[in-house]
């Protein structure tokens, strides 16, 4: 197992190397080069020359690439154009917010999606099945930021049950040791701060959960339907086993394999969804930071973000593959 994991980690190297070449070529392939991409409409010949000089864009391409990759390897993603601070530091301060949000969204998506898909399959063709099909269709067709608008308008503007934006009420003066606000509140015993952070997570969490929830429900339904008619399930029924045992040990356990893969694959959706959700709810995570970076043509941040996401994505896929063999002993990781 360890050897397999090691091999997979090694395979990450060529992927990341390729990605770095693509990213490097991507900005430089533009008409006008990276300087005019950075400057946008403010590109005058003098400004371009100045930027080229300052960032070394006038050096030979090979030299530029090796400087670039050398910096990447030491964790230097450059400085953000917006804040002039190192990209990695900016990520580090904002990452906990997005992780909190993504965890809440994933928990909602799993807690609602799996039962919904299961019930849809169990009551195939009945009302509950239709609910499950409609939810899984709407979840993928309603734009995330539109759903965020609706939730904000109903539950924050109209009903006032939840705060409309932010991570924490400004009146709460809490200490943030880890950056994970809920955890911070629990660690320092400031329970009202922890509760306030949770309340702020509900609406963005729901909005972000919509797409993964829909996909998880859909895959669970399809997978359970397939297992439902299997011979071993019929045998288990014929033996007179308790329905609960049939469900837990025979149906769910066998139906969960594709669901686990799907859950792993949701990471990409959660990250791109976070860019939109965090912007609507003014939630200071890496998603909102990326949205600002896009708007302000902050390319060091954009590049760093993409590499960061690619690493995260590949690692999660590895974890998913490894967790297969835990769920299903028949599967051996190769």
């Amino acid at each position, binding site marked *: 197992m360890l050897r397999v994991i090691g091999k997979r980690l090694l395979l990450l190297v060529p992927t990341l190397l390729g990605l770095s070449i693509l990213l490097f070529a991507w900005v430089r392939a533009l008409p006008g080069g990276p300087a005019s991409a950075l400057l946008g409409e403010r590109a005058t010949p003098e400004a371009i020359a100045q930027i080229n000089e300052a960032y070394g864009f006038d050096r030979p391409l090979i030299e530029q690439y090796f400087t670039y990759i050398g910096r990447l390897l030491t964790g230097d993603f450059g400085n953000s154009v917006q804040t002039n601070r190192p990209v990695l530091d900016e990520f580090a301060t904002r990452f906990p917010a997005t992780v909190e949000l993504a965890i809440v969204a994933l928990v909602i998506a799993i807690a609602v999606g799996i039962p919904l898909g299961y019930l849809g399959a169990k009551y195939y063709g009945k009302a509950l099945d239709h609910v499950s099909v409609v939810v899984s269709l709407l979840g993928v067709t309603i*734009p995330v930021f539109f759903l965020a608008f609706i939730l904000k*308008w109903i539950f924050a503007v109209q009903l006032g049950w939840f705060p409309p934006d932010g991570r924490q009420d400004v009146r709460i003066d809490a200490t943030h040791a880890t950056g994970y606000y809920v955890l911070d509140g629990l660690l320092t015993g400031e329970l009202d701060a922890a509760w306030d952070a949770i309340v702020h997570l509900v609406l963005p969490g729901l909005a972000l959960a919509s797409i993964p929830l829909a996909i998880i429900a859909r895959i669970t339904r399809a997978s359970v339907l397939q297992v439902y008619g299997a011979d071993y399930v019929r045998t288990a029924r014929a033996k007179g086993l308790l329905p609960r045992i049939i469900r837990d040990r025979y149906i769910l356990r066998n139906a969960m394999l594709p669901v686990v893969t799907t859950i792993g694959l949701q990471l990409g959706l959660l990250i791109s969804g976070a860019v939109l959700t965090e912007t609507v709810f003014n939630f200071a995570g890496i998603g909102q930071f990326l949205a600002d970076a896009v708007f302000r043509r902050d390319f060091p941040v954009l590049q760093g973000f993409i590499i960061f996401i690619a690493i995260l*994505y590949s690692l999660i896929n590895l974890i998913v593959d490894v967790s297969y063999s835990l769920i299903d002993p028949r599967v051996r990781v190769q």
Partner: protein
Amino acid sequence: MTALPPSPATAGAAPGAPSSGADTGTSRWRDAWRRLRRNPQGIAGAVIVGLFVLVAVLAPLLAPYAGTALPGRAEITPTGIPGIGEVPGFPLGLDRFGGDVLSKLIWGAQASLIIGLVSTAFGLIGGMLLGAIAGTFRGWVDAAIMRVVDILLSVPNLLLAVSIAAVLGQTPSAVMIAIGASQVPIFARLLRSTMLAQSSSDYVLAARTLGLGKGAITINHVLPNSMGPVIVQGTLTLATAVIEAAALSFLGLGGGRPETAEWGRMLTYAQNELAIAPQLAFLPGICIAITALGFTLLGEALREALDPRSGAR
């Protein structure tokens, strides 16, 4: 980004691979057509898509005003935006700039249709070229193309589109190219895997035995039989493109003037007036969702029609 992932059956194996001797190309498509007509979800999808296309094409006749016209400018006050049915002549009310919401929704359909078609065509053609080259020549060509495709697939689709659009600059055509380009790896991988599955079938062997060349076999035999999943993915991509175009607009990447009649743009500007004029956000949002729903339903129904085994039952 948001289209459903292709089910394992369609992504891996070829749909409706010729099974019996009597199964000719035409009867396969006729079978699919018959299954499609019997599928209520498919009919619902086709009706929505049909209406959407009709509105988009007939926009010049249907819309009371031009997309960028501001006929109700005089009715707008700093604190009040007339809502649905509040001012005669503007049935769905006005927006912040004084534009007629109904007209803008209608012109927005046209904008969405153009964005959807152009970007999907871009992704489809680019992906098919790469996929067909990889699937035909194999060897190092295949390996090289697929490595790049894999690398691109390691970046979430919407982020890829956002990054490309960010570099291309803030113009409407940049958005279309970005959305299309972000779909290229998906189409390439799909077509290649379908072609590989096809190339081991008996009819390819037969063609090879007859002495046909690689190119002729690919173009005349393998490609036509590999089109099913690509058509399905193309329909689903239209849904994705409509949603992603709105998302890119929302992130400020659409370019053009603020009052442009485009659903994503309307939604973006509506967020400032959510408390006083929520309909400005709801109407374009619902249009986007219904259009995406139509293409998704149609795409799913097409998938089941072309490959009955992929259905979830």
